[in-house]
């Protein structure tokens, strides 16, 4: 187990010229011993490329990869002591699943009983005991994926790279395995990077989450921070289900107060809120336009709400309600924990609490304010 540091790492595919593609762009990461990191981002954003550079299958075009205090750029995959579960499983077809799993630590020269015990332990964990004697081409994608995950987790490595390890599993099994895998990783203090499309998985499994887009690392932070203090508009709308409500807003200054007038899709004024300019308000600078965001479950419905909206939909999902509200032409989604008796067509008073408001620069998308606090300085702009 070890730390992992990426120091300004870039990957360019192709040999310059017009077919060159910058798949990973100047990524910095410092991962602690025993930390579980989620790598989240849309398809093609460079997640797999990042892992492949760490494992040593791809050269690093720029920057340094450090495992522990060793710069490993020039080391072969064999010398890096990294375990990896591949996106495409990469099981060895002529061997049974058992041998595929045991293959991973064939170099350790363990006694057969010890090998069997280790295979059994991980096979129990991932529910693949019944297919240990089968061959990879004869089992389903989900089973191959678990076998491939088992092969990685069972090893003794400094670092574990899991590339979409549960993408092929049905949701119920995935939820069960997620908890078990987390326990396995924490028990052994494994330094782990998990690539995933599924943010529920990332939020549940990881100490910190790295959000990538177009090769750029936008933010590496705890799930809490990502939700409460997203570094930019992309992260804000990427993380959270349903996604954050975002409106384009005009800024009007009136004495010590800023009026933020949000527009609807066509740009007509929809609703406004007032923000004291004292304190954090200076983070607004002299901007005339911002993006205003609020998470759906922080919209407060009812009571003496300052705004009045028209309910357009109300969906009870069994544990929460998704309520669509028309606010002067702009559509807002609110989430409440209980069922709420506001049928479509009714009027609803609501409040957008100032401490839950996020403001972003209109052009770069960089966060300006979270609640009434200025966003942390020095965060990267969305590309």
């Amino acid at each position, binding site marked *: 187990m070890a730390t992992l540091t990426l120091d300004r790492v870039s990957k360019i595919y192709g040999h310059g010229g017009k077919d060159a593609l910058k798949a990973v762009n100047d990524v910095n990461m410092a991962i602690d011993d025993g930390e579980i990191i989620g790598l989240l981002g849309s398809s093609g954003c460079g997640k797999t490329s990042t892992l492949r550079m760490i*494992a*040593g*299958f791809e050269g690093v075009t720029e920057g340094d990869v450090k495992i522990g205090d060793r710069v490993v750029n020039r080391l*072969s*995959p*064999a010398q*890096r*002591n*990294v*375990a*990896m579960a*591949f*996106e*495409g*499983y*990469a*099981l*060895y*077809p*002529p061997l049974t699943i058992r041998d595929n799993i045991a*293959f*991973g*630590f*064939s*170099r350790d020269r363990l006694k057969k009983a010890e090998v069997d015990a280790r295979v059994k332990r991980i096979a129990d964990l991932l529910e693949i005991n019944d297919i240990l004697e089968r061959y*990879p*081409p004869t089992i389903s994608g989900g089973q*191959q994926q678990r076998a*491939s995950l088992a*092969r990685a987790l069972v*090893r003794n490595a400094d670092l574990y790279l899991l590339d979409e390890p549960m993408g092929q599993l049905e949701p119920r099994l995935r939820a069960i395995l997620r908890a078990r895998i987390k326990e396995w990783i924490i028990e052994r203090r494994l330094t782990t990077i998990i690539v995933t499309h599924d943010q529920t998985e990332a939020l549940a499994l990881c100490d910190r989450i790295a959000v990538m887009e177009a090769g750029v690392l936008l933010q590496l932070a705890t799930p809490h921070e990502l939700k409460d203090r997203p570094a930019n508009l992309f992260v804000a709308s990427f993380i959270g289900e349903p996604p954050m409500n975002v409106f384009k807003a005009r800024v009007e200054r009136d004495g010590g107060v800023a009026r933020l007038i949000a527009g609807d899709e066509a740009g007509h004024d929809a609703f406004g809120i007032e923000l004291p300019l004292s304190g954090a308000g200076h983070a607004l600078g002299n901007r005339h336009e911002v993006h205003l965001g609020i998470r759906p479950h922080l919209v407060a419905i009812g009571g003496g709400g300052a705004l009045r909206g028209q309910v357009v939909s109300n969906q009870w999902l069994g544990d929460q309600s998704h309520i669509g509200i028309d606010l002067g032409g702009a559509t807002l989604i609110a989430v409440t924990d209980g069922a709420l008796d506001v049928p479509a067509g009714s009027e609803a008073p609501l409040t957008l609490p100032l401490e839950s408001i996020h403001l972003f620069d209109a052009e770069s998308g960089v966060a300006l304010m979270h609640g009434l606090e200025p966003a942390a300085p020095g965060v990267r702009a969305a590309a």
Partner: protein
Amino acid sequence: MHPAIRVVLLTLIGLFFLFPIVWVFLMSFQTNETILRIPPSLVFEPTLQNYTALISGRLETGAGVLELAFMQNLWNSFVLSFCSVALSLLLGVPAAYAFARFKFFGSEDIAFTLLSFRFAPALLVLLPLNLYFQDIGLNDTYIGLIWVYQLITLPLILWIVRGYFEDISPDIENAYRVDGHSWFSTFMKISIPLALPGIAAAALLSFIFAWNNFVFALILASADKQPVTVGALAFVTASGIQYGQIAAAVVLSILPTLALALYAQRYLVEGLSLGAVKG
């Protein structure tokens, strides 16, 4: 389709393709007289004299006794084909892997150049080569012939095996490398076994091509290094063409390739049933 019709059709096709071989097989048990009988007949008294003549190396013709080097020729064929294929495998399999896995500068051009050896008319290459070989003493040696045979076997092996390597997911190799194995042991333990059906097919095919080659050895080798293809010329004797012996020689010279094909078939079929290598 009705099964009976299928059987009939398959039999017809089989007969059509096998007829020449069957005919030659029958000829090999006949004397020249019965072969040249008009009209030809399927009824004859089988004789082993063609085979004994070939194996003992003594051919008794109307014009006297003729020494035959057929067994030596057969041995030469075997040595030349086997060594050529072995050398080509040694050189071609690693090269095929390199062409499949690494896109280095000019890799496509080099691969194509190697293939283009097969486009050149052999005689055009051989006549000047013969002069050089005489100068450096490679003329009429196994080594010289095996070297030239690479023109036949190497491109074939290179291009067929390359395709098989390309079909193996690099991540299967990566998975092994990341477990702590060197590049070389990954190549030996993972890549080669997975490409084995392809390697077997390529080896078989190039063995047959080498075995059937005529013109290289005709020009570059003298009697004691000649393979059966060239040696067969000896059956055209002063007292006529020895059809019986030719037929027996054909049967004997088919046998090694046939045996090899039957043996390699196991690997070929195994390769097909392991089809899902791409995982």
